[in-house]
């Protein structure tokens, strides 16, 4: 199937490429089907692209690469819809954001994907984790655009 995207142009997808998010994401409940793309220039970065809304895509990273001790707890009910056989079947991604100072990672509401079943969900972690965890770099491009 072919999808349109505003950032990456037209993409050709196989049925097995898509990931279903039965509840969508918070604030993006209508976006139930996504595809995970690799960034062309940055091996650490992925893009979760909505297959139904060309303008909606989320930059995602594997959190431990940037926050080595990151861990979180969730109520079992948060993970139940993913039908995970075990923790090993889960892939955790955090959404990249930005504020005036820095690129940030959403550690409070990570995305958990069951790769086997092609199911995903944004979970809300327990406790006081930041929605905008600032990474150490302060890119020149962000400074200029303020």
């Amino acid at each position: 199937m072919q999808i349109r995207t505003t950032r990456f142009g037209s993409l050709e997808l196989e049925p097995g490429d898509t990931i279903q998010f039965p509840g969508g994401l918070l604030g993006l409940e209508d976006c139930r089907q996504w595809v995970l793309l690799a960034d062309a220039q940055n091996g650490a970065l992925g893009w979760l692209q909505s297959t139904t809304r060309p303008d909606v895509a989320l930059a995602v990273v594997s959190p431990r690469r940037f926050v080595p001790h990151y861990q979180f707890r969730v109520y079992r009910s948060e993970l139940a819809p993913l039908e995970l056989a075990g923790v090993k079947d889960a892939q955790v991604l955090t959404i990249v954001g930005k504020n005036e100072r820095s690129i940030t990672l959403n550690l409070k509401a990570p995305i958990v994907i069951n790769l086997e079943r092609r199911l995903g969900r944004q979970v809300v972690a327990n406790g006081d984790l930041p929605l905008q965890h600032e990474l150490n770099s302060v890119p020149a491009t962000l400074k200029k655009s303020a």
Partner: protein
Amino acid sequence: MLVLSRQRDESIMIGDNIVVTIVDIRGDKVRLGINAPAEIPVHRQEVYEAIQRENLRASRIEPKDTRHLGKAKGSE
């Protein structure tokens, strides 16, 4: 908004499968117990709204915004 009065240990049913119970009342704080199916997330409203806003902000990020990601050392 539907407004109901409940006392401690009384409950409200929402739809067929959500039950909200007044577990405790102490001063101006009410402890609520919620029984809902696993697929239905339940969170404090302000947490939910903050995550919604952050998701919408993040959904506007473009590849050019991420050019420096991973090039600085990110160990915390």
